[in-house]
């Protein structure tokens, strides 16, 4: 097999698997998130309403795993789309590095934003 063909797949297996694992986390987590917030708390959503929910470790865990799994799935999905439009060789690695930085910074920012609720 030509080297560039191998390269296209190199390191892709773990990201492919993680895309599937985060997909399952998102399907289950979003079902909980959307039903609880938009069916049972519609109209009551407020700072205190969120605080009361996130005070339970269960919803804190749901929110943080949705943040992490959502960011990974979204950014890796974006990468999959961009790879269809001519990102090859070193461009692929630069793209992956940029997306990792965006993901880690966004996760840190999201956790920072939730911190007063998580520690209340």
């Amino acid at each position, binding site marked *: 097999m030509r080297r560039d063909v191998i390269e296209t797949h190199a390191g892709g297996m773990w990201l492919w698997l993680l895309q*599937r694992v985060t*997909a*399952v986390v*998102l*399907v289950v987590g*979003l079902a909980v998130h*959307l039903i609880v917030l*938009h*069916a049972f708390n*519609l*109209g009551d*959503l*407020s*700072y*205190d309403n*969120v605080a009361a929910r996130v005070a339970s470790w269960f919803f804190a865990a749901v929110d943080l795993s949705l*943040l992490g799994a*959502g*960011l990974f799935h*979204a*950014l890796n*999905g*974006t990468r999959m*789309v961009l790879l269809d439009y001519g990102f090859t060789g070193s461009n692929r690695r630069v793209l992956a590095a940029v997306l990792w930085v965006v993901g880690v910074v*966004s996760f840190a*920012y*999201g956790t*920072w*934003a*939730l*911190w*007063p*609720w998580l520690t209340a």
Partner: protein
Amino acid sequence: MSDKNRETANVGAGLWKGVGMWAWLFHRVSGLVLVLYLFAHIAVISQARLRGAAGFDTLFKTLESPFFVILDLALIAAVLYHGLNGVRVLLFDLGVGIRQHKSLWWAAVAGGVASLAVFAVISFTFIAQG
């Protein structure tokens, strides 16, 4: 079918006759919409820490207006399609249902429409109550 016909039958409208390409295209478009929403969502929710409880609650009053509730409903539609078609893709990865891929797509769409109807009833009841 001659080789020439087979070649041209698979381009333009011919390629779009099957549900597979639409399933893929909708998955990609809904995925990109959800990526944009995720970052908008992080930006909105982080206003809690940036503006404090009072500022956050004022912002939420705006987001409960009919315009945003209907946008939320469109968001639910994108989540339902992407999630249910994603389950279909996961099944294919496990080697399940590849030969039934068309009926599985219609099942995903039907499940999505039924779930969306529930959210639509909730949303319009909420809008009607003001």
